[in-house]
């Protein structure tokens, strides 16, 4: 049964959490609150995603700082019983176990009686397309099938906090879609589903809220819209294909703080000290120039560029 949410809806709170392994700082001063919904945890390999997930699962105690769940509850609180589910990183599973035996065993350890554990394990494995492989040894399954077994044990019971470390690895597009559906269903049922990935695009399409990690630091956090605004602010250049690029360039020069301008045949590339002003001025400039714009794109407004920009700041 799900523990009721606290008044502020906070499922997980990290306050100035630092995790060190000897001299290596895996996570530094992480502070954030997570509420129900699908949260994308993004960062390149070694950014501290797995460490953060293990801390959020209560499997580690932070070197410094405080992790609390469901409105200030700490590990050992009876109200946290069964409220956390986890899919750890890595693609191996005990080779001699079968999908059914492993999921059943996990559910038994989570307090289900034998019959309920077996029924529930069969149901979730069927949902994840593993019904023909119930009794096959896990060592003989494909990576994608093993990943679905790991996901099955995490989604088998409702939980308030579902932590998924690189959950879409090795899944084909059909199962990615199904797993994304499961994540959204869990979120609709009041869970905070944290999805870590180093593949930015796949998380962008699933998560409503993003947490960006780089070198152990939370470098950005917010809704997709907030992160988009951040990207927008950092856009490096606007590239346009227009019927009259010179006229359009003149109009933009008079309306926005343009710092660099380049015309190459039909293509116009513009940079401004305040990109937001440049974008705001664009529609009027197009109308005033009478140019016909076939194509417009910005450089540097994707998450990869954002990571590069943030990396420079962190250095």
């Amino acid at each position: 049964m799900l523990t009721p949410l606290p008044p502020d809806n906070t499922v997980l709170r990290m306050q100035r959490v630092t995790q060190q392994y000897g001299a290596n700082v895996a996570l530094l001063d992480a502070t954030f609150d997570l509420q129900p919904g699908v949260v994308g945890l993004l960062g390149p390999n070694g950014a501290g995603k797995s460490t953060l997930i293990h801390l959020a699962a209560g499997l580690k105690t932070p070197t410094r700082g405080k992790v609390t769940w469901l409105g200030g509850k700490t590990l050992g609180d009876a109200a946290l019983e069964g409220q956390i589910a986890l899919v750890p990183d890595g693609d191996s599973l005990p080779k001699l176990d079968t999908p059914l035996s492993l999921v059943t065993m996990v559910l038994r350890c989570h307090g289900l009686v034998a019959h309920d554990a077996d029924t529930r394990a069969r149901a979730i494995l069927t949902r994840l397309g593993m019904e023909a492989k119930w009794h096959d040894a896990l060592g003989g399954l494909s990576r994608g099938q093993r990943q679905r077994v790991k996901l099955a044990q995490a989604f088998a019971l409702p939980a308030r906090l579902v932590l998924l470390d690189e959950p879409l690895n090795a899944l084909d597009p059909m199962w990615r879609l199904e797993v994304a559906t499961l994540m959204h269903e869990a979120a609709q049922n009041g869970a905070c589903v944290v999805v870590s990935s180093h593949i930015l695009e796949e998380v962008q399409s699933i998560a409503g809220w993003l947490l960006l990690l780089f070198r152990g630091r939370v470098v950005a956090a917010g809704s997709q819209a907030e992160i988009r605004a951040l990207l927008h602010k950092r856009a490096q250049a606007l590239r346009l294909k227009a019927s009259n690029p010179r006229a359009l360039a003149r109009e933009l020069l008079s309306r926005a703080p343009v710092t660099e301008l380049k015309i190459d045949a039909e293509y116009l590339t513009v940079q401004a000290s305040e990109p937001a002003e440049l974008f705001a001025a664009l529609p009027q400039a197009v109308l005033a120039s009478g140019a016909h714009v076939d194509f417009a794109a910005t450089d540097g407004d994707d998450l990869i560029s954002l990571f590069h920009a943030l990396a420079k700041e962190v250095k």
Partner: protein
Amino acid sequence: MTAWSWIQAPEARKLSLPAAVGIHMQVQLVRTLRLRTLWPWLAMTLAVTLGGWAIVRFSVESADHFAEYVDTWGIRAIALVALGLGTAAVRQDTEAGALAFFLLRPQAKTALPIGRWLAVAVVAGALGVLSMLMLWLATRGTSAEMPFTDLASLLLAAVLAAMAYSATFVAIAIWARAAVGMSVGWLVLMDNLATKSTSFAAIAPSHYLAAILGDESAPETTVMAAVAALLGWTALMLVAAVVRLQREPPMVQQG
């Protein structure tokens, strides 16, 4: 079959520590009592038993040789079964990254090592008791024939050896990455080096097992003291395993 649903999820019970230990033990027993897992240890137990039977039947000084054989190979076979099953009990999950699945309940960090130790000790103990019983039966009607009191010593030693060695190897598997190598090293060190020196003998389980079996190499240790020492060692190892899991489970990776 019931279709999967978010709404109609079965209710999970709040597990007491003994109940959680029981479930973790059950999990490990399900994994251990498979022919693919068990056959090497069954074969080794059988080989040790046949070796003892051969000594009784074909050795001229069968009584002396048999007693030495039981002390050495009878007990060592139990230690090796405990080593194989004890290290695998944790290693198969840590290496596969699956240990986390079982540790998300608060009491699991205590229940998991105890439950898995119990399962390994039960299997190693059952094989040990079976082997000792067969060895004792093999002496019947020969010059090496042992009285019933010796059978009691053999069975007590088998049970305590299974308990102490299983706890040791489960703890090593939780603490060390190269669990098998570390366990073999520990076994060699304790059973061969430490017992040769009087000052180090006190930390070797084999010293106390020898005392229970009436071995002359442990003349100053009473059976009661040996039993207490082995139970104490077992408890110490289990505490070490629990402490490690409470502090930092071994599957946690940096990244």
